[in-house]
């Protein structure tokens, strides 16, 4: 049985009460204290791979990873001191020693955990001389670009694919210096081995995995982000539409979304092209004989009002009705029902597809 008692902990001098089984990282987050992480994602089981989140716990000689260490009663934690800072700098320097110096044109610039950490801890890639990968960028599928050179082997992509999506598409393949996340036999991602949910992209802290369709369309900080709800299935996932110059150029995860916590499926994450599709209906159209003619809103609305009024007069108000849709908003559904009951003055209104 897990202990149910409230635990009192002190992090950087702040008192925090923990009711559940919590890690130091979770307790700190609750109190608004930020501990740097690289291999951690709230959607994943604690892993403890990168050691960047190490903290000093009073009475323990070696620093402990905050993301895997549970809090205990009366624990006292210091999230950063000179020693910790130096260790973190070393970890970052090591990562940069096998990393391309490519921030200038990297898709991830401005939204990259590694870049932010290098800046925050004042580390550059010259500290350690290391052998560097020199592998080509892989864009062998419609949605996901993979730049292995930028991979820091945090294992988030492989864990989310196996732990959360349970698709088993990617895993760490190869050995030693050459081990990296990839598909079995390094085949392209296809419909037979991948769900194209993009969860791996959404968790990657660097520019190793990026959304192919959004590449080159703008930096993260240039985008206006609008939080919204998916219009495909009834699960109600939230995400951010990323806009540049009035166009939706990308969808990014909303990690605090109550339903989906940043997870999406192929439709929610990549199914936005239809919004700006060239064949959207752009003006009202009125039929004349066998063809449709463009009309203004006023013409169309006048005609509709006229024709419905005419039918009601000629055949009685029970001969007209409205279909609403389970694709429309609540407000629109409410209005169309109100419309039928107040304007047609009948109850001929139905949700046409009951599926």
């Amino acid at each position, binding site marked *: 049985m897990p202990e149910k008692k409230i635990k009192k902990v002190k992090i950087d001098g702040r008192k925090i009460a923990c009711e559940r089984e919590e890690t130091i990282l979770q307790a700190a987050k609750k109190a608004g204290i930020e501990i740097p992480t690289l291999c951690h994602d709230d959607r994943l089981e604690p892993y403890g791979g990168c050691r960047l989140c190490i903290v000093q716990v009073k009475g323990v000689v070696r620093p402990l990873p905050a993301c895997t260490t549970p809090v205990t009663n009366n624990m006292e934690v210091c999230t950063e001191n000179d020693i910790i800072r130096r260790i973190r700098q070393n970890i970052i320097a090591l990562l940069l020693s096998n990393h391309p110096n490519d921030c200038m044109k990297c898709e991830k610039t401005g939204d990259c955990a590694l870049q932010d950490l290098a800046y925050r801890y004042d580390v550059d890639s010259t500290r350690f001389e290391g052998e560097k990968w020199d592998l080509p960028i892989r864009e062998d599928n419609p949605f996901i670009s993979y730049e292995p050179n930028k991979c820091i082997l945090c294992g988030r992509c492989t864990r989310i694919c196996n732990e959360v999506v349970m698709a088993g598409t990617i895993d760490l393949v190869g050995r030693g210096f050459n081990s990296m996340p990839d598909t079995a036999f390094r085949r392209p991602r296809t*419909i037979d081995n991948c769900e194209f949910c993009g969860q791996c992209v959404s968790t990657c802290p660097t520019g190793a995995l990026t959304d192919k369709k959004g590449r080159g369309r703008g930096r993260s900080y240039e985008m206006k982000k609008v939080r919204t709800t998916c219009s495909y299935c*009834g699960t109600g996932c939230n995400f951010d539409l990323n806009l540049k110059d009035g166009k939706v150029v990308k969808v990014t995860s909303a990690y605090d979304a109550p339903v989906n916590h940043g997870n999406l499926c192929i439709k929610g994450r990549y199914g936005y092209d239809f919004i700006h599709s060239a064949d*959207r209906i752009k003006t009202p159209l009125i039929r004349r004989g066998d063809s449709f003619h463009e009309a203004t809103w006023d013409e169309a609305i006048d005609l509709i009002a006229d024709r419905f009024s005419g*039918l009601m007069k000629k055949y009685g108000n029970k001969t007209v009705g409205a279909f609403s849709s389970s*694709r429309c908003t609540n407000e629109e559904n409410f209005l169309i029902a109100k419309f039928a009951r107040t304007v047609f003055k009948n109850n001929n209104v139905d949700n046409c597809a009951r599926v």
Partner: protein
Amino acid sequence: MAGLATSLGAGAATNSLAQMPDMDTLFLFGSNPTEAHPIVSIYLKKALSNGAKLVVGDPRKTWMARRSDVWLNLRPGSNIALLNGLIHVILKKGWENKEFIKSRTEGFEELKKKVREYDLKKTEKLTGVPEERIIEAARLYSNADKAMIVYGLGVTEHQTGTENAMAIANLALVCGHIGRPSTGIMALRGQNNVQGASDLGPLPATFPGYQSITNPEVREKFEKAWGVAMSPEIGLKSVEMLDKACEGKFKGIFILGEDPAQTDPNVHEVRRALSSLEFLVVQDIFHTETTKHAHVILPGASFAEKDGTFTNGERRVQRIRKAIEPMAGKAEWQVICEIAAKMGYPMSYNHPSEIMDEIAGLTPIYGGISYERLERESLQWPCPTKDHPGTTTLYTDLFSRPGGLAKFMALDHKGSGEVPDKKFPYVLITGRIREHYNNGSMTRRVKGIMELVPEELLEISHADAKKLRIKDGDMVKVSSRRGEIKVKVKVTDRSQPGNVFMTFHFPEALSNFLTSEHRDPIAGTPEYKSCAVRIEK
């Protein structure tokens, strides 16, 4: 959702999705969430990795069926027989929850009498599921502590769809598996806002919030708010409007964002009905099969172009936000207001938030919902007042039926409207795949998705493929009593012998030319899940 409404009170899922990982037993019925509801499936997968037992009732060998402890591979259309059979076993073994049945339900004796007819032999015969599996499923589910039944369109898209849902409620009630966290019934539905579209009352017999139009007090409330008399006469369902149109007795329809000419079964008839109308207005973002029949087509605004709310399958009301201006200048809500005003009934709102305020004032279950609150919190209805936190678990003490008791419904096995015979020996099941959506009008415009899944495929078992001498990639002709289509074959063990599967996402090979006209007489839901077809090279 009329099924759950009859048995329990409300036509809605009883719990929240977030409770799923904590259940210890999952009974998945007629639902393929890894394809149709991928994010729900993430919750379910979490439950499985936490050690939950899994029972799957599905004619297809889905991802979940492959990983199940018990797979109930029932014949399409035999849901009621199977559920009655399960309850039969549970009662016989004394696994029912007597206390719960006594204190929280009514109608148990009738149910007991009815399920007595469904002994194991008969159930096996009707469903094709071996006896041992039925017993094991009954044991796992009834002995669970926290058990959820998750069901999908494989339950509702039958001519007995409403009754199927009642039969599911029977099973949960017999075991007392309802009204607690991580314990209840979750219905997974197709389109994004099915829940909201039912809640908000574009229905012939109910006002918003399932308030009956035959109730004079309710009518009075709406008359006061809207300033006109409300007709007490129940209106026509969409199918009935179309039927009457074919007879020349229905003249004009306004269709908002739907494509019945593709997504309805038996589309020939629907198209005939639409072309018999004197006046048809269709508002949509793309040209569809339905717009072809219109007299006026109005451009719709996509979800990125307007403010509003959707209500998801767990009763959670969530915002959509306007990211860009409506491409054609107006969003649907504005257009409806303008037409109403032109026809002599002024409607005016400055913003959809004002419509929500009106909804809240008239709809008790949405009473506490406002855009302002939704900026700060996430709410699941019932949320009757501004200080109510919303409801994650329904029916913790009372069911929302008169008297507060849930009702057992004694039900008979009826089977599908159309069963295979010599001429049409295969059962066609239609459904969804992860990559596409409904009539495909949105997903077929996503280049990458079309690269991955460019066309319809007929899924057929290895045994049947061999029998018909067809192989992967062959083109075949599939025909039913209503029509025929040509489609490419995919041989897979997802299909059991005798059953084939197709989606309805592609107009070039539209399964709805084949699907039958049988419908659930109560909800009007078409029987998409089963019709008899012939397959020829």
